[in-house]
């Protein structure tokens, strides 16, 4: 028995291809932001533009030592230094004072074909991997993952901070199939962020499961969320990473002159379904090491053998994983990425 395990482990190492990549199967667009009034929220909406705000700060950093020495000789210089206004320019975004509701709209493509890597240079692995995925699809039809993704659409998790403190939130999901349109409306607050067991999402989950498992080639969904925050309330588009320091200290994201959330940020919310890590208190985003950056924590440490690569090495060569481990591995494959093993 021990010999056999050793043999499998050896095989796993040699079988893992050096080139291996998966395309993501949930493809969201950027999410644009509009302002409406709750009472007529399904009517016409105006795009939200970013505003430029100049804040007058003051000198707060420690003065450099060289300057302090110079100041001792010439106290007048300090006044000049402190009087220098520290003007900060930041991007800002808020609802206009006559609108109480934020409307956020994006589209989501759900693709099939998770059994086929977009790049793989090892035929033996390709076969055993395909077998494992087909086994998973045969067993679950992707219902568990689809239910969780559908819940994260219906509960409006993708609104992030724009969800906090809203009086009411409505999500309308439309399945676009040429001329035919199927529409579901959800009360996002009733569904909530803490579990994935609301039967209200079943029909939407079925459409997503059919696409992921290959019963249909793809599904195109239009997602519109209405978050009633109150007139003039601040809203939070994605922040741009500023690499070149310019005169603006906070840059927000916009597309076509309309404030927006990055598609990556939307995708991250949709895959916040991992409750299968040890001592799970709440769902975290599906990531290779279970990393949650805003807490500076990794919930799936490689030392505990629950990280993606450890599990995937076993899954890919046809080793048996527990149900929850399988869900996690499949969710990572839906997420997509480059998972090849370096030959070094």
């Amino acid at each position, binding site marked *: 028995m021990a010999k056999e395990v050793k043999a499998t482990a050896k095989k796993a190492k040699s079988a893992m291809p050096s080139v291996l990549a998966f395309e993501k199967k949930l493809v969201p667009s950027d999410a644009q932001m509009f302002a409406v009034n709750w009472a007529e929220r399904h009517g016409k909406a105006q795009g939200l533009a970013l505003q430029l705000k100049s804040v*007058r700060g*003051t*000198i*707060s950093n420690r003065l450099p030592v060289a300057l302090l020495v110079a100041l001792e000789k010439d106290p007048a210089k300090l*006044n000049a230094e*402190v009087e220098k*206004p520290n003007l900060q320019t930041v991007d800002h975004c808020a609802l206009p004072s006559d609108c109480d509701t934020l409307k956020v709209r994006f589209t989501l493509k759900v693709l099939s074909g998770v059994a086929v890597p977009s790049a793989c240079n090892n035929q033996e692995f390709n076969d055993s991997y395909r077998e494992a995925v087909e086994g998973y699809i045969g067993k679950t039809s992707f219902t568990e993952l689809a239910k969780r993704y559908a819940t994260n659409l219906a509960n409006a998790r993708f609104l*992030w*901070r724009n*969800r*906090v*403190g*809203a*009086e009411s939130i409505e999500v309308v999901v439309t399945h676009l199939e040429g001329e035919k349109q199927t529409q579901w409306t959800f009360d996002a*607050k009733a569904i*909530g*962020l*803490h579990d994935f067991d609301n039967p209200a999402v079943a029909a939407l989950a079925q459409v997503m499961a059919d696409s992921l498992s290959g019963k249909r080639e793809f599904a195109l969904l239009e997602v519109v969320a209405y978050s009633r925050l109150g007139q*003039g309330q*601040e809203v939070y588009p994605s922040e741009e990473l500023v690499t070149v320091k310019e005169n603006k200290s906070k840059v927000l994201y916009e597309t076509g002159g309309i404030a927006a959330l990055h598609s990556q*940020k939307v995708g*991250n*919310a949709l895959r*916040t379904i991992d409750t299968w890590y040890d001592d799970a208190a*709440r*769902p*975290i*985003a599906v990531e290779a090491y279970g990393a*949650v950056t*805003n*807490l500076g924590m990794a919930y799936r440490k490689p030392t505990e053998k629950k990280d993606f690569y450890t599990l995937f090495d076993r899954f890919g060569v046809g080793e048996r994983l527990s149900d929850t481990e399988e869900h996690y591995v499949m969710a990572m494959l839906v997420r997509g990425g480059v998972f090849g093993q370096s030959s070094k």
Partner: protein
Amino acid sequence: MHYYVEITCLPDEGVSTAFIMGKVMDVLHLALVNLQQRLGRNPVGISFPEYGGAAQMGGKIRLFSQDQAHLESLNLPQQLQRLADYVHLRGISSIERPTLAFATFQRVQPKSSRERLIRRQAKRTGRADAVVRAQYQTFDEVRTDLPFVHMHSHSSTQSFRLFIEKRTAQPVGEWVFSTYGLSGCVGVPDF
């Protein structure tokens, strides 16, 4: 006997505890303003049981009162309903212990902007800007690294930092707090 309710901000992926704390404090401030208008004073104090760690303010808030009815009248379950996915509210508990420690949580407003002080002084005294400016010629701006809550003013719609300092204290009889539930002299149970 001291009565209290405890509010825990639940950290969520992508939404920080500090952000939720600010939203909760906005709600509590409004509730306490209403209470003060009704009673003519605010007898409900706030403590931050996780104050001072690496996370500075932590994610917990307790509201204390010597009269259970005051806590009930705040109607917190309804007030915090908008934040239902992000906070956990425990029902009213009581505590009485001979060895109970007390601490004050006090607002600190550092004189951090010389320009602002000049502006306000000029407005208050009606003196010319240049005169006031001369008076503040040698003024040193004060900085603080105290923990703070990021809040929004409903009257001015400006956002600001509510800096809070914690000090150990002796229990006192007269319970009066600001509309933020803070006080420089009235201590609340600290456990």
